[in-house]
């Protein structure tokens, strides 16, 4: 079989192997990225959560000690309670508001794109910048909000300085900031509702409320479910706006669990402890999501098909 001119080249790899290798080579950048920035930190922090690691000192294995300390720390429970308080206020309100606004924006009105853009602007602005602006608005003595209130004959409200009110102020800000994102999701869902259903309902004599109750609401439940899950996950992790607006105060009334984690990681340099907080939160979020999925099967409508 040997031929001086056209000697049959022996391939190093078979064609199939070559394809596989090429494929993985193409995937390599993404895989590397995922490995370095996703997989590695997940496992590294899991290991860390069982260690005592002052950021500038040696690591030491301590078993469950970090978790025990966390569960015994009243500040942790306080911060967890604050985060749940925030979630319970924020998530339902954000869903109701987003659905209402999306239904308004789904009408054939003049300049609807302008409105849609308007609602989306807060989502794409830097949250640090707008949080600073809102803390001016909320200022007890010179803020715009209290200025209106006193002009209308009301008294000043300590929006960010009264421990009973500060969390509500943060929720108001977050609603304003996050509304646009949820509205976009609901708009997409609403536009997926077939028009003939409404026509048929109208013929059967259904009013606007009945149309909403029996057509719109059931058909957007998958979106609602999605937003509920993501909303809870996001709300428990709330950090930025609180860090800027209240710094966790007054009297730790807005000190949420991710601030607690941040303080331990970057101000007290207890990386192992902070990792354990992170894992504890992952477990709590996972449990909440599981409960959500169970409950959701009762109300989420999935089209057969």
């Amino acid at each position: 079989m040997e031929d001086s001119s056209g000697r049959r080249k022996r391939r190093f790899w078979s064609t199939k192997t070559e394809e596989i290798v090429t494929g993985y080579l193409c995937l390599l950048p993404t895989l590397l990225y995922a490995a370095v920035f996703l997989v590695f930190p997940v496992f590294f922090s899991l290991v860390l959560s069982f260690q005592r690691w002052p950021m500038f000192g040696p690591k030491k294995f301590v078993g469950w000690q970090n978790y025990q300390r966390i569960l015994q720390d009243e500040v942790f429970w306080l911060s967890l309670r604050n985060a749940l308080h925030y979630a319970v206020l924020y998530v339902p309100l954000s869903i109701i508001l987003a659905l209402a606004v999306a239904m308004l924006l789904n009408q054939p009105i003049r300049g609807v794109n302008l409105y849609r853009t308007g609602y989306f602007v807060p989502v794409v602005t830097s949250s640090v910048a707008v949080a600073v602006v809102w803390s001016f608005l909320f200022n007890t003595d010179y803020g715009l909000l209290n200025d209106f209130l006193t002009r209308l004959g009301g008294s000043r409200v300590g929006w960010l300085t009264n421990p009973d009110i500060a969390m509500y102020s943060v929720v108001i800000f977050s609603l304003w900031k996050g509304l646009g994102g949820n509205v976009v999701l609901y708009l997409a869902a609403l536009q997926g509702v077939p028009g003939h259903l409404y026509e048929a309902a109208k013929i059967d004599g259904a009013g606007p409320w009945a149309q909403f109750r029996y057509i719109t609401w059931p058909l957007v439940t998958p979106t609602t479910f999605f937003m509920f899950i993501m909303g809870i996950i996001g709300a428990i992790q709330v950090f930025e706006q609180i860090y800027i607006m209240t710094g966790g105060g007054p009297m730790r009334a807005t000190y949420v669990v991710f601030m607690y984690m941040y303080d331990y990681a970057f101000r007290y340099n207890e990386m192992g402890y902070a990792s354990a907080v992170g894992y504890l939160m992952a477990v709590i979020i996972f449990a909440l999501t599981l409960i959500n999925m169970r409950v959701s099967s009762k109300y989420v409508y999935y089209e057969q098909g």
Partner: protein
Amino acid sequence: MRRALQISMVVTVCLVLAFSTVSLAASKTLTMYHAFTSNTLEALKNLIADFEQENPGIKVKPQYVGDALMQKLQAAVAAGDPPDLAWTHGGEYGEFAKAGAIYKMEDFIRRPDGLSNEELDDFFPVMKTYCEYNYDDQWWVLPVNATTITFVYNADMFAAAGMDPDNPGIETWEDFAIAAGKLSDPQKGIWGFHIPVFSGGMAGYFDWIFRPFIWAAGGKYISDDLQSVAFDSPEAKEAVKFFYDLMHEYKGGTITPADQAFAMGKVAITLDGPWSIPQFEKLRFPWRTMLYPVGPSGKRYHPSAGEPVTIFKDAKYPEEAWLFVKFWMRTDNMAKWAITSGYLPTRRSVLEDPIYAAHVEKTPGLEYFVKGLDYGTVSEYVPSWNKVIDTYAAAVELIMNNKVTLDKGIDDAAAKANEAIKRYWEDYPEEYEQVMSRLEARQE
């Protein structure tokens, strides 16, 4: 072809660089690392120009290294090629002192062409503490910049409350509390003083006010053996009691953080550093400064800080570097330096320098910033500082709001902070050894 071109370009660049280094070396160029910006950079340029004029044949090449100052210095020292001089933040030079990488300034100072004892005594006493290493009572570096915090007040509000703005007569804690009460009008949201009870990122501001008051009461944050906090001592509690009374008895203060409250004329007294003078000059009302009041211990304290200049052992021209440092320390030069940079001078005699005196005359508030340096303090070394100050500030906030009694609030916080300190020492055994040996050195 292309490759050849690339290579030749790289070679050319290398050659140019090599020769420029050689030619620079020929004219005795001192390199100085710094992180100065804006006004301070301007001051440095002027200083160097004056120096070069007076010392022909010596050039100073300032090299801005910004936030990476320490990393750059460490790398340069490790590579055996440090700059001749460097400015460092506060006590960062300690690391190089320990490694034997810098000259002890004392070596130059004590020579015939050094500094006289009168000149050394002319530095504000607290400045020497910034320049020692391990409390060894030696000048390792020399201080170029000083800063301090003092009280700033709204002269119009003082006049309206029936006090003489130029001589308000606030000497003691009690004077301060009474004055604050007179200045306040709670109905209108106007307060004599804003008591900063912040933890977290703002804890530094909290420290500016609480540390001098704790000290003036005869207390401290931390015990002498550094094993536990001392903010639960009766003396330190008196400082918290003072602010509690200021708020609840004299109705002279609020703890509500109010942005711009001083600038808006809603708070009569605030505290700040000399770097804010340009902002104060834009205020719509006349302002003055005063010293921190004298506490029950009969003393007053101000927060302060100093920044030094260092000469490196492997410097190419240590002798010329010393000439430059000495030039910098000269009263007339330091006066010009302080005026342009906005920092405070580190020597008392600068206040008598005609140029600086004229400057103080023009900048009324400046006087007490400089005078505050006479009562300047070095921050206490507190292990697990962030955790300790957060715990303390959180307790003070609860006390101020009547959520917990003073004794219980402080004692609980002390127990928690002590736990944090114990944990800190377990986590950092090396630092523990170092600090303990330093403590022994101090006691000897």
